[in-house]
């Protein structure tokens, strides 16, 4: 493409303008001679007042130019070249495809400088691991920014703000969203593009109130294919079916009819609802401009092309009905214009960007695979070479300049705040989702999903709340406002290993309907689930050594007490009517001795046992004991007689148990009953404790802060500061250590580079003399103190001698203590003096030695 072509385009454009003018003139000429009809028409027309199109100048936000780096305010020569080239491209496009909408090529940036869109993309990989995958990055962009809709919605924006500024101001239009997201995705290695095109009103305005909330979408349950019974060679034949076939057929027919009827009704209902929910017709349908992101397969193990809607952060398939057309596509390297028909939306569009019949590229250094001609054909070789040469020249000429945008920066704190001010609310179909930044809410709430019955969001059905960092490990809370049911989920790590707690909000107290599910792996007793109603309690266990897996308790009513209410009665449990324990089969015992079920009929003083069924049998042995009448007396001798026991043994050949064995069995059972009862009481207490804990936790709602979170963890912060301080002190001390003892003397003679011998000697002498002086001074000081102290003591003694007679006891004592102290002090001073005298020569010698070895002086000694 050279300048001559460009000129042609200009000329052509001018020509077409002229034609329009001429047409206008002819119209005017026709209007001069008027018929009556025309007169009337004119009067009619005069009523219509045509205003000049008033251009609604949206007040553009002004930016402080000072805070931008020069690349924002000016263009490099290369950038100018590219801009010219883009302008040329635009003109050609306009000339060739007259009825095409303008392309989004050279918008101004926040400093009012024209920039080419490809250079606005700044591929960046930020340090947050959530941003490494496309879904995390898309969600982040959707959360982090606020939406500014295009104004007007059918025109391309005049300005495209750089992604770095967008990150700072936390809002932007769809082009800015897409550019930022594209920067992040390309930085993370995806093959991503910004698409400029058309979309539905809902998409452009990010109106999701007709979509089902993604959190509410049911995960498609992987339906396990019913395992087909393997047909083996010797499978037995099923018993013959003796029912009438005709009747069966009739029944099946009826059933099918019913089913069809239901299906029909359901469909009708669905259609009706769909009709109701249809959005109102949009006058600008197909004209609304939108920008979104395209990710092509190939890089980062992306198996299939898909779109990402930047406003919601969700992916859309290639045939999504939300997108109505595509004008152009670009990334940081090239710009492609769609040459395909978009009358049916984006369905069926080819995204083979190398195919120049469907995508008109702007720069020839297209890194997309062109339609490849097999290299094997030798006769084409020469031609290829020629083309290659040309291409080389072109490439030199048209290299994309580097992005003018500053590196994208995102502080850890901002990343954690996610949304502007840490809060964001989204409205979906019959649902509202509120998001909060971590640690923003006092109770650790991070998101709340409210589900409503109606679309106007007035009739609240249920609320789903998600928490994080709570010290009570609460992660989710589901409140059903219809039934009053509350379901709380917890992470592992609570003192009683609670995993899930379901109860009615109206009756949160103990001894009411509730279900508790536990992390049974962490519990000593292997409790999986505890279900309670007002009069019953069922517990399920797993993996126990005693093979217990089920326990059921039926409570009676509390006996009403007359008279003054005792405080202890509240703690006393309800009477137990019946307890059932069930056990798994213990293969180490014969089936006839392995208990499958014990029923303690507490109210009837009976114990019923069923044993497991032997492998070859269908019936199980049972046994029933009547408890001795005095069983609950302490220390009583329990008697036993054969009438208290009944049994049914499946195998009549087995010998009957001996009486002693039965007696011992009964004793064991009584113990087991006692144990079971205690366990039930313990369970009740545990429930009470858990509920108490929950109330306390709910009131306190403290948040845990990780020790690695240096921002928030006060203690860690303190600790770090302390460490820093210590380090500093250490450093200071080291510096002090290094103080040079020769420095003052060297300074005296003016820090000469090299010492003469004489200087060195005098330096040494001086240094030693100084030390001597100091030692003598110190000795003198101690001596003086010693003398002073002795004198004072003498004085005091003299004074005492004089006034001894007239003194009171207190004064005398005072004097004595004084004497003691003074003598002590004198003694100490004496000691110090002697020590000093002893050490002084040593110190002197040491210094001398040191000076001798000092590298500055050593050469002279």
């Amino acid at each position, binding site marked *: 493409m050279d300048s001559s072509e460009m000129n042609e385009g200009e000329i052509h454009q001018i020509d077409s303008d002229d034609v329009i003018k001429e047409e206008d003139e002819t119209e005017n000429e026709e209007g001069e001679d008027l018929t009556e009809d025309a007169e009337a028409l004119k009067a009619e027309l005069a009523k219509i007042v045509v205003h000049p199109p008033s251009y609604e100048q949206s007040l553009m936000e002004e930016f402080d130019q000072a805070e931008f780096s020069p690349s924002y305010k000016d263009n490099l020569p290369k950038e100018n070249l590219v801009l010219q080239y883009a302008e040329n491209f635009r003109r050609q496009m306009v000339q060739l495809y007259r009825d095409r909408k303008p392309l989004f090529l050279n918008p101004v940036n926040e400093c009012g400088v024209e920039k080419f869109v490809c250079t606005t993309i700044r591929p960046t990989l930020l340090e947050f691991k959530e941003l490494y995958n496309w879904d995390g990055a898309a969600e982040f962009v959707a959360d982090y920014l606020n939406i500014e809709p295009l104004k007007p919605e059918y025109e391309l924006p005049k300005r495209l703000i750089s992604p770095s500024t967008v990150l700072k101001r936390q809002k932007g239009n769809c082009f800015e969203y897409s550019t930022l997201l594209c920067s992040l995705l390309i930085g993370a290695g995806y093959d991503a593009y910004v698409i400029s095109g058309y979309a539905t009103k809902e998409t452009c305005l990010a109106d999701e109130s007709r979509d089902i909330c993604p959190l509410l979408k049911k995960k498609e349950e992987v339906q396990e294919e019913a395992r087909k019974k393997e047909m*083996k*060679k*010797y*499978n*037995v*034949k099923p*018993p013959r079916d003796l029912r009438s076939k005709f009747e069966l057929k009739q029944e099946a027919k009826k059933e099918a009819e019913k089913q069809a009827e239901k299906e029909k009704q359901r469909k009708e209902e669905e259609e009706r609802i769909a009709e109701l929910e249809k959005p109102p017709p949009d006058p600008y349908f197909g004209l609304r401009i939108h920008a979104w992101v395209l990710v092509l397969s190939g890089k980062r193990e992306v198996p299939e092309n898909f779109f990402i809607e930047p406003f919601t952060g969700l992916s859309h398939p290639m045939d999504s009905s939300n997108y109505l057309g595509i004008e152009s596509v670009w990334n940081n390297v090239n710009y492609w214009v769609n040459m395909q028909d978009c009358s049916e939306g984006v369905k069926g569009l080819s995204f083979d960007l190398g195919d120049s019949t469907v995508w008109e590229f702007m720069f020839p250094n297209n890194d997309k695979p062109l339609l490849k001609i097999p290299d094997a054909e030798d006769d084409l070789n020469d031609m290829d070479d020629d083309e290659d040469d040309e291409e080389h020249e072109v490439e030199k000429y048209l290299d994309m300049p580097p992005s003018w945008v500053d590196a994208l920066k995102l502080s850890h704190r901002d990343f954690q705040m996610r949304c502007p001010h840490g809060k964001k609310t989204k409205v979906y179909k019959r649902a509202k989702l509120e998001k909060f930044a971590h640690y923003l809410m006092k109770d650790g709430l991070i998101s709340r999903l409210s589900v409503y019955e109606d679309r106007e969001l007035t009739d609240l059905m249920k609320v789903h709340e998600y928490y994080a960092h709570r010290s009570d490990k609460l992660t989710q809370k589901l409140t059903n406002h219809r039934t009053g049911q509350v379901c709380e989920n917890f992470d592992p790590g609570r003192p009683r290993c609670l995993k899930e707690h379901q109860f009615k909000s109206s009756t949160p107290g103990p001894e009411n309907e509730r279900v508790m599910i536990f992390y049974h792996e962490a519990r000593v007793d292997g409790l999986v689930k505890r279900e309670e109603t007002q009069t019953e309690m069922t517990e399920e266990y797993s993996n126990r050594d005693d093979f217990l897996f089920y326990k059921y308790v039926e409570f009676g009513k509390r006996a009403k007490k007359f008279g003054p209410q005792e405080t202890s009665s509240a703690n006393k449990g309800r009477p137990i009517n019946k307890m059932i324990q069930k056990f798994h089969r213990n293969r180490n015992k014969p089936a006839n001795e392995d208990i499958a079920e014990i029923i303690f009929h507490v109210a009837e003083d009976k114990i019923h046992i069923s044993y497991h*069924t032997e492998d*070859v*049998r*269908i*019936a199980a042995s049972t046994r029933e004991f009547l408890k001795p009448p005095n069983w609950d007396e302490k220390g009583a*001798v*329990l*008697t*036993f007689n054969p009438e208290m026991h009944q049994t*049914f043994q*499946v*195998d*009549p050949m087995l010998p009957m148990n*001996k*009486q*002693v064995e039965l*007696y*011992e069995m009964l*004793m064991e059972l009584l113990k087991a009953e006692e144990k079971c009862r205690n366990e039930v009481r313990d369970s009740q207490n545990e429930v009470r404790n858990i509920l108490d804990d929950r109330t306390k936790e709910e009131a306190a709602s403290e948040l845990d802060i990780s020790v690695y979170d240096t921002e928030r963890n006060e203690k860690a912060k303190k600790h770090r500061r302390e460490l820093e301080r210590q380090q500093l002190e250490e450093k200071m001390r080291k510096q002090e250590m290094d103080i040079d003892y020769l420095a003052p003397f060297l300074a005296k003679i003016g820090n000469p580079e090299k010492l003469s011998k004489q200087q060195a000697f005098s330096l040494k002498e001086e240094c030693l003399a100084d030390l001597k002086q100091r030692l003598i001074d110190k000795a003198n000081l101690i001596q003086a103190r010693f003398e002073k102290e002795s004198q004072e003591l003498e004085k005091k003694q003299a004074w005492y001698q004089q006034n001894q007679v007239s003194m009171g006891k207190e004064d005398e004592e005072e004097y004595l203590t004084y004497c003691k102290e003074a003598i002590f002090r004198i003694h100490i001073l004496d000691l110090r003096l002697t020590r000093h005298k002893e050490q002084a020569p040593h110190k002197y010698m040491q210094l001398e030695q040191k000076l001798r070895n000092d590298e500055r002086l050593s050469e002279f000694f």
Partner: protein
Amino acid sequence: MSRLYDTVEPAVIDEEMLKKAVEEQGPKEEAGKIAKQEGIDFGDVLSLRLDFLNILKIDNLWEFTKLTKLQLDNNIIEKIEGLESLVNLVWLDLSFNNIEVIDNLDSLTKLEDLTLYSNRISTIENMDSLLNLHVLSLGRNQLTDLENLRYLRRFKNLKTLNLSDNPFCKQDEYKQYVIAFLSNLEFLDYRLVDQQSRDAAIEKYQVSRDEMLHNEKQAEIKKEDETKRQQELEKHKNAYVELMNGPDLFEQMYAEDKEGQKLNEMPGLEDQLHSFKEKFMQICTQIFDFGIAEHEKREEEVKSFWECVEEAKQDNKRLGMVHIDEFTETKKRMLLEMSQMSDHKMVEQYARDYNDKIQVLWDKLMGLELQLVDQLEEVIKEFERNMQDMVGTFVENVQALLSQCRDLENNHHEKMMEIAIVTLEKVIKNELDDEISDDLKMLLVDKDTIINAVSSSHDVHLLKIDNKEDDIVTRINQSLKNLIEQIHQDEEITRNRMRVSEINNLIDHLREEMDNLEVMQN
């Protein structure tokens, strides 16, 4: 320690003594009272203490088959005996007796704790079967030979050992020797063996210990190989083609054929003999491979048969249990209702209903059982047919292959005959170059003799092949017959009888229960 036992009258373990001991050591208090009334079976006793009774001879303990703990300390027992039937014994105390030889413990394989403290034992021996031994006390005995302690290496679980006060304890290296050679020990002579002393001891006896370990390992490997070989042979036997993968049959043919062996020395026969052997072996290998393949097929068949039978039985059992459970639920409900009723007539009505229900249950259960019987019968028949087919093809093929063997033998025979006659002629003409043995010369005297010799050799060979065939065919048929009979017996007759008696027993019990209830209410 020896006591002057002849000053006191030695006691005999008699019924009175045992009874007394059992009662004294049996259940206490109320349970004891009941036990006394009822009498205690010696067979139920789990532990027995017979100490300080001056017992000379262990006897009359054969009734205590469940015994796990037996204390016979502080007696004057001289010989271990009479313990053969106490196979459940875990704990045996024979300390402070006059035992001289360890003996007669072979049946006590469950024994974990054996105390022979203060006896007169001079060798450790005769304990090969006590592989579960954890604790062994041999203190204050007459053990003198440290080498003898290596006997204890076979007890892999031995953790606690007491050897104090034996003559060899005076030797300096005693302790280290024991620790080095019994390195699994945790306690020796009342003390914990710490890692330090263990290391030191092992270091000291490094060389001999390594040698010993090496030998043990070799022996172990050898043993393993042996068992592997045995298993392989067993498998081949089950396939009825054992030893067919080697030259066994061929060798057998010549084993009892002295003339054949002599004839084989004839000159010019080597090539012939070689190719004959090769071909013969080939066919044998074919038989072997075929036999193994067929065997695997049959195994597969049997396995799938049992799987299906098991499945059918399980299904049936499940249905039966469902019926019983349903009935139990109804029973509970009805009994509850009946107990609340006062009207006599209504109660009777209920009782009748209940009896009807019992009848219905019986019908259902019996119906299920009959259904199962039918199903199993059919399946078993089919299985039988298939198995017979398979065995038939196997036999046919083996026979065909063996007849190939016979053909080979016939060919060989003809060739032998030719060579024999040629050789004879040569001998007669004295043209033979090679020296031949005297035995062969004896045969090469005239035509009749040599022909007779060759034919008799041929006959022996054919006989061997026939025998092999007979053996295979009879064995496979026999085992098939046994298997089918077994299945008929177990799966059809025994199972059915057991189930029917079980159902009847249950129904009787239910009826009885009802009758009792009625009686009580009346």
